[in-house]
């Protein structure tokens, strides 16, 4: 089960670092945390998954909702630092071409 995400303000947005497995047991809380940041309409939202060893489709759904909200407002969303198992579900769900995925937080900040 993931812990509460760590929120860090960026000059042009917000960095959200998540830790722990993301499954249906924690997606309601995670969705709430991310929506709270989406409501502030950040120009750039970066979701850091380096400490997420596992994610199922309920976690992916939360990220898709965030992407849709940011895209609708013509704002940016990037995810970064995916571990292999998490990268795997993005590929299986064919979302690896939909999200902007970066290898590091710095790369995501510069994109």
């Amino acid at each position, binding site marked *: *089960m993931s812990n509460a995400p760590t929120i860090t303000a960026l000059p042009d947005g917000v960095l959200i670092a998540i830790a722990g497995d993301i499954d249906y047991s924690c997606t309601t809380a995670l969705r709430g945390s991310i929506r709270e940041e989406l409501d502030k309409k950040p120009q750039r939202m970066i979701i850091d998954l380096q400490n997420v060893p596992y994610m*199922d*489709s309920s976690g992916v*759904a939360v990220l898709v909702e965030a992407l849709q909200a940011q895209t609708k407002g013509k704002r940016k969303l990037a995810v970064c630092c995916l571990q292999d198992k998490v990268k795997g*579900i993005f590929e299986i769900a*064919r979302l690896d071409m939909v999200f902007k995925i970066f290898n590091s937080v710095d790369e995501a900040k510069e994109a």
Partner: protein
Amino acid sequence: MIFDANEYHVQMRVISQPQYLCVIRSVINVIGGKCGLSSTETDHVVLAVDEAVTNVIRHGYKDEPDKEVDISIRPINDKDGQGIEIILDDQCADIKIEQIQKRDLSELKPGGLGIHILYRIMDHVQYDQRPDAQGIRLTLRKFHKQQQD
């Protein structure tokens, strides 16, 4: 439980609470290798079973926390190869098998990925009405493929 314990090596009855998904994942993660699957294949089966149980809890039981999911696991070694068979029995009253469908992935939507993932990952996915009780039985099979070693 309905199966012969000699046939099914591991049987679990799990309450319909998502906090126990991690327990199910841990069990599958250990058994996958014992059934001859590679670590990547085992990871995929872990995800598939997680998705299947989540679907039962979320859609079948509508998040009611006091229902049961029975999970039976055995190694298989037959004409199709070596691998794992997992059977999930639920007690969902309101779900018809015809309602369980994977969705088209061309449209970007947050939900409905679970069934798609099952079919992408597993070599065999079969839904049946339970022969012995109310509910649905899902049979999942995954075979080891040499090239993934």
